[in-house]
């Protein structure tokens, strides 16, 4: 099986990691003030997806959009 080629650069991954952690913390800390379960879940999905992309270094949207932020390539 072909593993997807890494298409997220280091800077990209740091930004994504930061964003994901910030969003998860926001949802956890301000759970009450957001007040809408639908939005809370959406933010969590968004954050977790970014977290996965950060970990494996591959973003499906980048793949579709033919973007690569790796410097070496």
């Amino acid at each position: 099986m072909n593993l997807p080629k890494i298409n997220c650069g280091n800077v990209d991954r740091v930004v994504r990691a930061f964003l994901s952690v910030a969003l998860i913390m926001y949802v956890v800390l301000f759970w009450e003030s957001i007040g809408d379960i639908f939005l809370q879940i959406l933010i969590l999905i968004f954050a977790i997806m970014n977290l996965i992309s950060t970990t494996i270094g591959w973003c499906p949207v980048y793949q579709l959009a033919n973007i690569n932020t790796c410097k070496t390539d």
Partner: protein
Amino acid sequence: MGPQTLIKSDTRLRRRLLFGSVGLAVAVSVIFISVAYKLARDLGETIELENINSLATQLIYQIPLISSQSTKSLLQSEQLQKSHIFQSLDSEVVGIEIWFVEQHIKLRRHPEWTYPADISLALGKGIESSGFTGTDKERLFWTYKIDTVTGLSVLLLHKVNTLNIALEYVANRLSITAFLTFWLAVWAALVMSALITKRFEQSNQKLAYMACHDDLTGLPNRYFLVTVLNDFLNKVEAEGSPLKHHKGSLLLIDLDKFKEVNDTMGHTAGDDLLTSIARRLSEIAGDKAHLIRYGGDEFVIWHENIDSEEAKNLAQDIVSACRQPLLINDNQFEIGASIGIACYPQHGTKIDELFKRADIAMYHAKKMRLGYQLFDQSLNSMSASWVALRGQLNGALKQNQFVLHYQPKVSLPEGTIVGVEALARWEHPEKGLLAPGVFIDIIEQSAVIHEFTRYVLKQAIIQCRLWLNEGISLSVAVNVSPYNLRDEQFIPFLNEQLRFYRVPPELIEIELTESGTMLDLNVAERVFPELRAVGVKLSIDDFGTGMSSLAYVKKLDVNYIKIDRSFITNITTDYRDEAVIKSMLMLCANVNKEVIAEGVETFEQAEKLHALGCKLAQGYYFGKPMEPMLLTPLLTKNTSVLAKVTQIRGTIIN
């Protein structure tokens, strides 16, 4: 170098699409947030206003009850303050003012607070109304109610909370939604812009490919070649080393007999042939050379790094490969190729120069049936005029530079002119009158062959009409090329002209040269009956020179057979020629065809021909091809031609 690099791709499109989509997402988010915010606020305010109105109404009914319970008839502010109903009012009610009889009681409000204009107006006129008012720090609702029975009126001021709540909601939920929407929009924009630019790039590449390639053979085309050559010349220039250190050869390949296949077998067969040839050529040329379809049946090979000797070897290979029979539609074709070679830098250092010289060499190769020819300065003078004439052909035809001269055909031994043969001459503005030998080959190889023959035919018919107008009924023979028989418009055109000029068809004679191939014979076999149906006379020209003379006699139903001049020249000295003529005459008599002897130049030849039984002759002895104005007097007076023939008759009689 791929053709894609010839046309630069545009990366700005993607950026524009991306910015456009993100901008749109931001705009939509802003509109969405502001509308949702106002909606939340308006909804809250309406509900709050209704609440405060009902509170004011309650107070109006409660206050008189409080006052009636008290001992004094007048209201006391302290008493009101202590009452249950005022205690239960929440802290959002920031001001209560009551007017009852002469009393004005202010509760929960700073005494120095001044009314804004709309409240003052309502109080002054004593009208029930409500609305918003505000200071810099806070926004307030007010409502003014009057009890008409007791005359009690109440003004309530209430803090607006909805605004803050709405803001809070917006800050939380809407901004989160907007954030998520924005990201989704960015994703969508990225993907869509990628897809669109990908599609765009694909069509762009396709267009670039189409612009640089020939549709039929898939080979690169002339535009591509020019780019490649320009790149080569630029590279040489950029390197700055002496020109002799560089080499390259340009081979211009022109297929022989391609037109025949195309005309006889149809364009599809022609296309198949071109594709097969292209495949062969690309195999021979190899990967290092650029093979280009230059147009029609012309190909070009540009090979960097080969000199003239290697180019000659390559040309030899190509010529041999092209001579291998090709199988198309179950028919075998043997076509040939003529190749002109020009080498860089000795034959030219510019694209035009190389092409011109390769062209000259190619024409020389074609004319001399050499297969291939390397350009040589000596060719310049010889073949350059050929190339020049080819270029002037179209213009000459449009400007009617071609004229017809007529050579008489006489009967033996009477010597009367029984017909004429129309022969084309090119009145060239610089070179003077050119004989057909100079230009017929060029015409036959060009695209104007059909147009040219129609022009000649029309002029001959017109001349026939002019003679008819003068009372001379004379047959005019017109030479047609085997190519013309494949022109489907030829017979309709002939018919039309004959009708238009009211010329009896039997006065026109179509001469087909015998030197054509068997392929020509097949076409002639098909077309001749149609020509016969028109009513014109038919003859075989240059009889005896081709490979299939007897087949012509057998298969074609013609009126005349014209014996080639090569048999006549030595008829008086060579007994073999005499024997051939004798046999031909006998053969033709047996198949019931008349014989015309061509190229009779001396009295002796005429005499001999007559003695052998030939009844018709043509040649310089009887008259050269001449302009109609010189010929017409001979037709009316029958002077010079007759004199010669009388001589023959005299000799014979004596």
